[in-house]
Every structure is written in C-alpha cells, then in structure tokens.
C-alpha cells in the first residue's frame, strides 16, 4: 500500500466541525480529510463521536460550527441528497434498505437517475450489477429473505453503484465472517486504487490496520490526531482511544467470599444476531457484557427478558426460564432495564410516582382502589434512597434529567420482592457523572441482596469498575471472559478491538 501523496486531491474534508446534543458535546472542533485513492480509518470507542462525524459528512446532521467539502465543493445546506449529488456514498451501519422491496428494486433506488435502466430491464440490469461485484443474490426476492451478511454486503454494493468520489463505510463488517471480510476488503481496495477515497469506520483494529493508509482517532468528541497506519501498533491505538482521566467512582465490591450459588444458567441460547451462548451467573454477582455495538449483546439480553424469542434453554434458580413473553420472564423474576428508557421503559407523561408503582399497584391498593398515602410513602422512601432529584413526586418523568429518569426505572426492581435477575442495558447512558455513582450503588445494593445482575454497557471503564466479571461478545458469541485482577478497562478494550473470531452460522 502506498500512501497517496499530498498531490492527490482531497475528496472529503471537514474543518472545525462541532456538534452538541443538549448538554453533551458529541464533536468538538474536529478536522478530518480523505484524499482520493486512500483508505482513511476512523476509530474510537462507542460514543466517541464517530457516528456524529459521519452524520455531518453525509448531510444527516447539521454541524453547529465548521464546514464540509465534498469533492472540492463546499456544502451549503445539509441534506443527504446534496451530499450524494456532490459524490458522497455511504454504507450505513443500520443500512439504507427498504426491506419490503426486492433486491433489484433496492439496487435501482440506490443509483442516480441517469444510470437507472428502464423499469422493464430491471431484473437483468440488477443481475448484471451483482455479477460485477461477484455477489450471488436472487434479484426478485424481497430483502427479508437475505441473511444479515448478505444485507451488509448489499449495503456496500449499493453505495458503490452510485460511483462515489468518497465512500464512507460505517462498521461494514459487523455481520461478516472472516472470508467475507476479506472479500469486502478486496472490493474496497480495488475501488481505492481506482481513485475513490474511502473512510473506514470500525472497532476492529486488526481489520483497520490491515486495510488503512491513515488512521484518525477520536476520543470524547475530540480528534487525537491522524497517523500513518504502517508501523502503527494496536496497543498504541488503544492507548489513544481510552487515554482519559479517571472520572468515576465505583462502589466497593464486598470482597471475594461470595457464595458460589449459581442462579442463572444459559445453555446454547440462540436468537437473531447471537448464539449459541452458554453462561452462568451467580447470586449476588454483577456480570458485564462488553463488545462493539451491534454484536448481539442487546438481542441476547432481550431474549432473556422475553422481548425476542430465542431457542435453547435458560434456567433461573433451577427452574426452566419462560422467555415466551416479557410477562412470563417477569414472573420468573427477570427484570429488564431497557436502554431506551423513554421509548420502552417509562411512561414519559406520567409522574414519578405512577412510573414507580405501575408494576405493583395490586400491593398498594385495597378493594381495587389505590391507597395514595401509602403509595406516596413507599415512593418517597425509594426516591430518597436512590437520590432522585425532582420537584415533586407528581413531576412527569419526561421533564427529569436522563440520570433521574434512569433512577426512576431502577425503582421498580426495588419494589418487587421477587426479582432474581436484573438485566441492565446501558444503565448510565446519557447520565451525568454525579448521578452515575447513585446508579452503581443501587445496582450493587441489589446484588448484595442476592440478585444476579447482567450489565450491558459500551463503556469499558464502567464495566471494569462496576462488575465482578466481564464477558466480551463479538458477532453474537462470547469470545472472552475477564475477571479478578485481569479486569481492567485496557484489557476489555483490547478484547473488543482484537476480537477476530470465526462466527458460527447464525
């Protein structure tokens, strides 16, 4: 690989790009450029600002400050359509497929008007395009009939069909096995040799170093610099990715003499995007699940909570776990704290009081009527214990801060006496540092009561500080387990970015 010299034209450049979402500064004065014919990788942890940067480049997000140039043309209004016109192609991590349409129709929609065939020649045209990319897919079938890997490859092919000057690939290999990764890389390199600038975003450092000419590292929305990939070591990249000051405190683990009583047993559990997974969690243990986004962690938790339907078995406290519906999982003592608090967990317009007691109203009432005074006392005690900051118990939860919302959803397992397992999905996402400790402490307190807790988090520091043991997931399987003295942020990040495991046919 030769690094294209400075004489190659710059096909994408962001200068001084900043973007804030509410109080969170997602991107701070970042400059980034990609030249024709190079593969420029962009790495960083979850939440480091990669997606924001891509969103700004592709016209989906308007930057608060800074400018974007595509193919030498300054972007005026941010719209995906304009970015495409200027020569930007992007393969989205979550795809741009219309699943109910056929493969051929999806390809058709992806090319500019001038290149579209007559509608009657659609199938033949689509077959020819797929053959160009050596992709064997049924053109007439709807996308629903494709495997996840096929859909991911199709997304890249679609982006290439528009003949872009610069191609953005956002985590293009999450669903791919090693051979397919190889194929994708061949395809990408072929394009870059013919003068396309490639921006390659990935968590997988071996892949990144294998294909990139230059690497830019983002951390907490700030660029840590751009480096030549040749001679760059994975360790140095990891250090750049995580090198931030310690800013959270964590509750004490209560020593090592934990009763080794196994509470949750998962064997050969499979579902969409994960499996087979074998796992045991002990009473009073906090188990962390680490991994790059989109490697099946969320689906695994949801399967346990009965939100998605898995195959395989899980048992809790010796009894077979019913995971056919959220209600049956709840009856087995499993509580899911969803990562999408407002969307799935809370009733945004209802009060703190109502949100807290909604699952246990029967216990707080008499003859079908709520005993309001008792309800208020119970909720008030809990709110004080968890440190929920609010104007009154009647304040709608949508007007609380993220941290306080999360605490409200945490009150529920405290009210139910029968909780055996808590599944916490990103428990501190969007939560300010101060409130984090309260949440960690609440989880630890529950664990000390003998509850088993599984925490899915994209923050390795959090996992290292909070958990007793951490498993790392990649492509739907557990690829590493870390505990004891080994358990540290650096070790977790290394496991995440180094994961190169043959994926089972999911």
């Amino acid at each position: 690989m030769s690094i294209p010299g400075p004489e190659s034209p710059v096909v994408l450049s962001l200068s001084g790009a900043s973007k804030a979402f509410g109080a969170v500064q997602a991107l701070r004065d970042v400059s980034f450029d990609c030249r024709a014919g190079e593969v420029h990788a962009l790495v960083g942890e979850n939440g480091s600002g990669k997606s924001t940067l891509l969103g700004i480049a592709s016209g989906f997000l308007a930057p608060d400050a800074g400018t974007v140039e595509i193919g030498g043309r300054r972007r005026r209004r941010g719209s995906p359509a304009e970015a495409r016109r200027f020569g930007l192609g992007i393969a989205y991590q979550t795809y741009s497929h219309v699943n109910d349409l056929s493969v051929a129709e999806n390809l058709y929609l992806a090319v500019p008007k001038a290149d579209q065939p007559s509608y009657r020649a659609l199938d033949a045209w689509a077959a020819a395009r797929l053959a160009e990319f050596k992709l064997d897919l049924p053109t007439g079938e709807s996308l629903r009939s494709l495997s996840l890997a096929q859909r991911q490859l199709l997304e890249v092919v679609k982006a290439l069909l528009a003949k872009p000057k610069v191609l953005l690939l956002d985590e293009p290999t999450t669903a791919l096995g090693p051979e397919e990764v190889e194929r994708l890389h061949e395809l990408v390199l072929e394009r870059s040799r013919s003068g396309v600038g490639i921006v390659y975003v990935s968590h997988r450092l071996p892949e990144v170093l294998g294909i990139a000419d230059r690497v830019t590292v983002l951390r907490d929305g700030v660029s840590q610099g751009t480096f030549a990939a040749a001679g760059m070591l994975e360790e140095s990249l990891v250090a750049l990715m995580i090198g931030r000051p310690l800013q959270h405190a964590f509750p004490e683990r209560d020593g090592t003499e934990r009763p080794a009583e196994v509470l949750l047993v998962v064997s050969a559990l499979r579902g969409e995007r994960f499996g087979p997974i074998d796992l045991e969690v002990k009473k009073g243990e906090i188990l962390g699940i680490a991994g790059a986004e989109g490697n099946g962690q969320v689906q695994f938790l949801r399967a346990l909570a009965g939100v998605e339907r898995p195959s395989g078995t899980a048992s809790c406290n010796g009894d077979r776990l019913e995971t056919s519906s959220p209600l049956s999982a709840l009856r087995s003592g499993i509580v899911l704290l969803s990562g999408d608090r407002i969307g799935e967990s809370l009733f945004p317009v209802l009060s703190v009081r109502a949100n807290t007691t909604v699952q246990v109203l029967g216990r707080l009432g008499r003859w079908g009527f709520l005993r309001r005074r008792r309800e208020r006392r119970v909720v008030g005690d809990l709110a004080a214990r968890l440190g929920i900051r609010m104007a009154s118990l009647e304040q709608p939860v949508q007007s609380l801060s993220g941290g306080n919302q999360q605490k409200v959803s945490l009150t529920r397992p405290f009210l139910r006496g029968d909780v055996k397992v808590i599944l916490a999905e990103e428990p501190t996402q969007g939560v300010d540092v101060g409130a984090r400790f309260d949440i960690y402490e609440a989880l630890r307190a529950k664990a000390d009561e003998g509850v088993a807790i599984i925490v899915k988090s994209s923050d390795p520091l959090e996992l290292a500080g909070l958990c007793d043991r951490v498993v790392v997931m990649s492509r739907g399987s557990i690829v590493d387990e870390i505990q004891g003295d080994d358990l540290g942020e650096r070790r977790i990040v290394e496991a995440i970015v180094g994961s190169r495991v043959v994926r089972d046919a999911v």
Partner: protein
Amino acid sequence: MTTARSWLPLALMSTLIIALGAYAAARQDAFLTEYNLRNLLLTAMPLALVAIGQTNALLVGGFDVSVAALMTLCVVVASYTLQPDKPWPMLLGGAFAILGVGLATGVFNATLIRVLKLPSIIATLGTLSILAGASLLLRDHPEGFINIDVIDTLNTSVRFVPYAFIAVVVLAIVADLWLYRTRAGLALRAVGLDDTSSRRLGMATGRTVFLAFVICSLMAAVAGFYSAAQVQIGSPIIGNYALESIAAAVLGGASLAGGKGSFVGTLLAALFLTEIGNVLPLFQQPTEYAQMTIGGLILLALVLYQAPELLARLRTSRGGVGRLRMRAPAA
C-alpha cells in the same frame, strides 16, 4: 415486484362483484337493467374518486379523515357557484373555485403533517372539524339547487356506462402502472415503506408525502362534483366517505402501514361496496345491513390479506429461530 399477495385483493374484489351481481341478477330482474347499472356506476363515482385519493395518503403511511368534510364543503360551495341560472363562463369559474377549495385543503393538511410534523390522523381530524363548521356556516340546512346542465354533463353516458366512469377506470389503471412500473412510483412506495432509508438514499421524502396529501384532497374535491350531481342541492350532510374511502383502499389491498396498495384494487372495492348498497333495496332489505356488511368485510379482508404474514409470525414463535437458521445459510 408483483407477488401473489398483491394480486389477492384484486382477485377477491372481482370475484365478489361478479358473485353478488350474479346472485342479484338471478333473483331480481331489476338488477341487470341498463337503468340500474347506470345508476350503480354513477353512485359509485364519488366513493371511487375519493378512495383513489385516499389510497395516495395510505401509500405514504398516513390517513386523511377530512375527505368527507371536504366533499361536503365542495357540495355546499357548488350550491353557490354552480347555480341553475348562471352562464357557462361563470360555471367554469365556479368549478375552479371548488377545485381551489380542494387544493387549499390539501396544502393545509400537507403542511400540518409534513412541516409541523403532526400525525396525519390528528391533523386531518382538525381539518375535518374546520371544514364541517364552514359547511354549516354556508348552509345550515339543505338549500340551493345545483345547475342541472352541469349535472347532466357530469352524468353523460354511452348506453349504461358514464364517460366519467370510463375515465376513472383508465385513471386507476394508469396510476397502477405508474406505481408499479416507474421510478417515481417505486420511490413513492419506498417512502411509504421506510422513510429513513428513503432519505438516506437521497429521495425527496418530504415532497412525496406533501404531494400525496394534496392529491388526496384534490381527488376528494373532484368526488365532491359527483356528490353534488347526486344530491343536487347544497346539503351540509353527505355520507360517511372518510371511513368508506379508507375501507375501499384497504379492501383493495392498501396497507395501513404504508407502501402497499393498488388503485385498481381500490376502484374495484369502491364498486363492490356500492354494489352492496345497490342490491339490498332490490331485496327489500334495509340499507343499514349494508353498513354492517361492509364493517364485517373490512375485518375479514384485513385478516385474509395478512394471513401470509400472520402464518409466518406464528411459525417463528413456535419453532424458535428455526426459520431464521433456515433463511440464513452459513454466511
């Protein structure tokens, strides 16, 4: 691509129309007379037109419940602008005024939905109220005859087939070809199926949705002409076209989730719903039965059309992810 599922509604509606027609013809001589058939087709016109408009709204994943109120307002306006003693140039202007009301309502609805981001059902519910109030303000009781020459022109027929009906058939066929055989049609379906992906692919999703609602209202205004031709007087009370138009679109194969539908299917369904109303009086049955039958049919059709998906879902839940494993061979 056309699949079995998209042909099912067309086949079902055609069968039902013929079956009901054959039954009625066998039992009652009055059914197959030119007089009755012409009457049937003319009666079907307002519903056919407004349902074709409604199909546009459903295709982009919305509803327009204000269409009936708009038709009523158009009839009321017609009782002012299409008065019996007016000369042709003024009548022409009057017709444009009615279309103008439709256009304005469409732009109003589309702005609420696309610019102010209101859910379409809420937005058009508000519009419904405004339009209904306006109609009552203009005519608090049926009054003001519609120009009989205009009515005759609208109803001109070759033997028992009104020219207007032929036009609607052609319109529906052309619209379906457009929807399933052109880029713009594909883009419309894509927007209805998946707004985010469509935006990512650089499509003007906002414009598509906007136009769909404007066309819906315009079609309702045209339907208003045929309502006016039927009631022949400025009446502030016109039938339950909001629900019936949605019913016809759904019976014709439109999905409530957007992106699926057929204009020909909608037309057939409108014809069938009108046929029910036409046949019942021949058998001395009260037309209230028509309403109940229509309600039952809609439910039946929804279940039937979704049967393939329901079955698939059932299989998934039974066999765990067996289906998934089958679908995704070693990647």
